[in-house]
């Protein structure tokens, strides 16, 4: 980065790895993830905290990376979609998305997967209503939500 005043170095723990990144007071976690670390799974859909495409987990809870200042994330455990599995494995949530046809264009998918992952950790067997509520902050324009909800319910094992 050039021309930016007040750059400081921030230590971020992302997917279990410590990173030292430059960040001024305005730099968002989304910018650091995408532009500096090449973690492009989190998407810039609105940059305003509405669409949920940039969702990542901060200490296991879903947050909007576009609204989170990078400097404020120091000391927290950050998980992106890239950090969910090793190699070519899929988590039960990802596997359920594959099996239920819950993916169309895929732009909302990383955010949906992370939000669902956080939900299942808190509530391992959510019902349809609980899943719909948990996903209500993640926009999908393709699917109509039905298959995403079914995938998350199935990943939790409840019917």
């Amino acid at each position: 980065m050039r021309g930016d005043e007040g750059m400081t170095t921030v230590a971020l723990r992302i997917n279990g790895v410590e990173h030292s990144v430059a960040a001024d007071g305005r730099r968002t976690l989304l910018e650091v993830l995408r532009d500096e670390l090449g973690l492009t799974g989190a998407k810039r859909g609105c940059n305003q905290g509405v669409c949920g495409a940039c969702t990542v987990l901060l200490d296991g809870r879903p947050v909007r990376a576009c609204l989170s200042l990078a400097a404020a994330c120091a000391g927290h455990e950050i998980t992106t979609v890239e950090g969910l599995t090793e190699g070519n494995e899929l988590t039960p949530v990802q596997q359920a998305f594959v099996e239920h046809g819950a993916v169309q264009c895929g732009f909302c998918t990383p955010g949906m997967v992370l939000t669902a992952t956080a939900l299942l950790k808190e509530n391992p067997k959510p019902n349809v209503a609980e899943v719909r509520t948990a996903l209500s902050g993640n926009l999908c324009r393709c699917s109509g939500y039905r298959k995403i909800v079914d995938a998350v319910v199935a990943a939790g094992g409840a019917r």
Partner: protein
Amino acid sequence: MSPYKNQVGQSIPKVDVREKVTGRAAYIADLSRPGMLHGAVLQSPYAHARIKGYDTSKALAVPGVRCVLTGADFTEHFMGAFIKDEGPIAIGKVRYVGEPVAVVAADDERTARRAARLIEVEYEELPAVLTPEEALAPGAPLVHEDLASYVKVFDAKFEGNAFSCTDLSEGDVDKAFAECDVVVEGTYETQAQYHLSLEPCGALAEVDANGRVHLWSANQSVFRVQANVCESLGLPMSKLHSMTPKVGAGFGNKMEAHIQPLVVALALKVQRPVKMILSREEDFEMVRARHPFKIRIRTGARKDGTLLAREVETLLDGGAYADDSPGVLGYSLLMARGPYTIPNTRCFGRVVYTNKMRFGAFRGFGNGQVAFAGEQQIDEIAHRLGIDPLEMRLRNAMRIEEPWFGGQQVNSNGLAECLEKVREKSGWGRRARPSRPGVKVGYGVAACAHISGLLATSAIVRMLEDGSFVLSTGATDIGQGSDTVLTQICADALKVTVDNVVCATPDTDGSPYNWGTTASRVTYTTGRAVAGAAEDVGRQIKEAAAKMLNCPVGDVELRDGGFIGVKGSNTTLPYAAVAGFTHWASGGPIVGSKSLIYDAPTIDPRRAVAIGLPFTRIGVFSFNALVVEVEIDEVTGKATVARAWSAVDVGKAINPRLVEGQIEGGIVQGLGFALTEEMVWDGGRLANPTLMDYKAPGAVDVPYEINSIIVEHPEPDGPFGAKGVGEISLVSVPAAVANAIFDAAGVRLHKLPMTPERVLTAMLGAD
């Protein structure tokens, strides 16, 4: 070895799904090239103004800024799908608030955006026309003074700001209305809807040492990108290599150009890779949106419910550039009769330039607007005559042998079955309206047809050395799953599993021509080409095998799982042996291909009169019936859809789960259109270009219980009988919801979206 199953008809997971659930799928914003710069755009603050001059010195003085381009740097070259009226940037004058006026390339996005704001443009404001009525008023300022001299790809009828006027009629409408026992008449209004592809538009261009441009962009057709960039910049097509990364949905907004020409112009100027990704606000303000319609419509019937006549007049806001507007207008008129036998129908429509962003293709392509009007009138007539509205539709449904409005032959028609299926599954006959305090409940039905087809496509199937296959079509998968469906068609035709076929990424250098992922056409049109190319390969495999086995070609056949067999015997050869033989011994590598264009005429001049209609060969027909259950909060007026049943005649579901995904997604996008979504202008400025202020449905706003019902009346020349499903499920939604609101509350809504305020106002007026 597990037994081979037919690949068509299986709900196989999408071929790209692992990439997408792991976040590895690369969209345009995720791409990067060495030495890449970032672009940003300066937008017009005026709806209509002459550009007097530019001062770019402050922007160029910002450290990290490498290039600034304004309208002064472009010569006049024009693009446009129907009327060539649009340059890559505003030249000479601006025509809407938000129009690109200048672009910057800089070392990073933040610097580029900061520099763009420092460009000074001197304007002389001109009077603007912000509605079609203003634009049609005598003496109204012209948005395009040179309309008459623009190149047009059809016999356009135009006058003043009205850039396309279309007439379509059949029968003797005046005489028929005189014979009607009941006639209903009304005016309806629909709003601008934003596509909201979750991925904003973007592009990345790089110029090589030979001066050839390599372009990646969010698109619905690499070939339309190529054509638009080359037409608007005056480049030969051979100089432009158009490619696609994964695309974060389209719905119409990525079919024609967005910022690709500007990004290419920057890259040509700086001779470095340049990427530009629009912000959500820019994507709202400068890409395109669904046309606002004003519709005057009259429908008449006999006492027994037989529909006799319909008359429709539409007025479309086209915005500042023609884009796909003539097509939307013409298509909406072709659909305005609905899927019914109405022997006497007369339609007239105009689409008008205004000083707003361009309006263009959006899932439904004008059909949802006219259905909102026409399908309410079918209900009104049924109500007046005391006929059940679903029964009314069944009585008037086009029969299989009947042609479409205009005279085109219809070769498969599952409308009656769709209506019967939703009647049965929704429990229509015994539908209850449980009264709860403060809640009114109602049921509505609507029906429609939609085409799949249009224009040219081609496919190439190559056999690799080990007997597996590469399929190339040039069709961009925008998320709906066409890579998967086309792979299934190819695999099934060659009797191998989908693992043995890879679908190549579209690329204008490597892929055969495909017009685009639009008009619900890929499964039907491109699918036909794929089936044809696979058949060509199958024929060549048999010829090679016959040579290897030293027998007549008529004695060999393709067998399940990738084998050639000798008829009446157990002798088989694996494809790998044939591939080895052709690659290394005799005949040469097997390459099969098929090119086609949809060519059945839309208009039969013996039946219909059509003037200024831009489409003369549209496609084959899918059919749909939809029932919705609506609850209205009596205190707030908020209408919510609790359950929906949608039956779609898709000919043959190549991948049933993907078909359901299209039906469910279309319904929910239709619910946004029906109930909450509206782009609002404050003067010439779009007042709500953010997701905070533009309400698209979330998971809790839509019914969980969306019941997709697949009906299969095979299209004779469709691949395995298939026809399109991409758009149709959206079309019926506003009308079905409006009819359910009437059923619940006894009020008719004539304006979209049917917001709580509008519903409540109507209910209070009715009391």
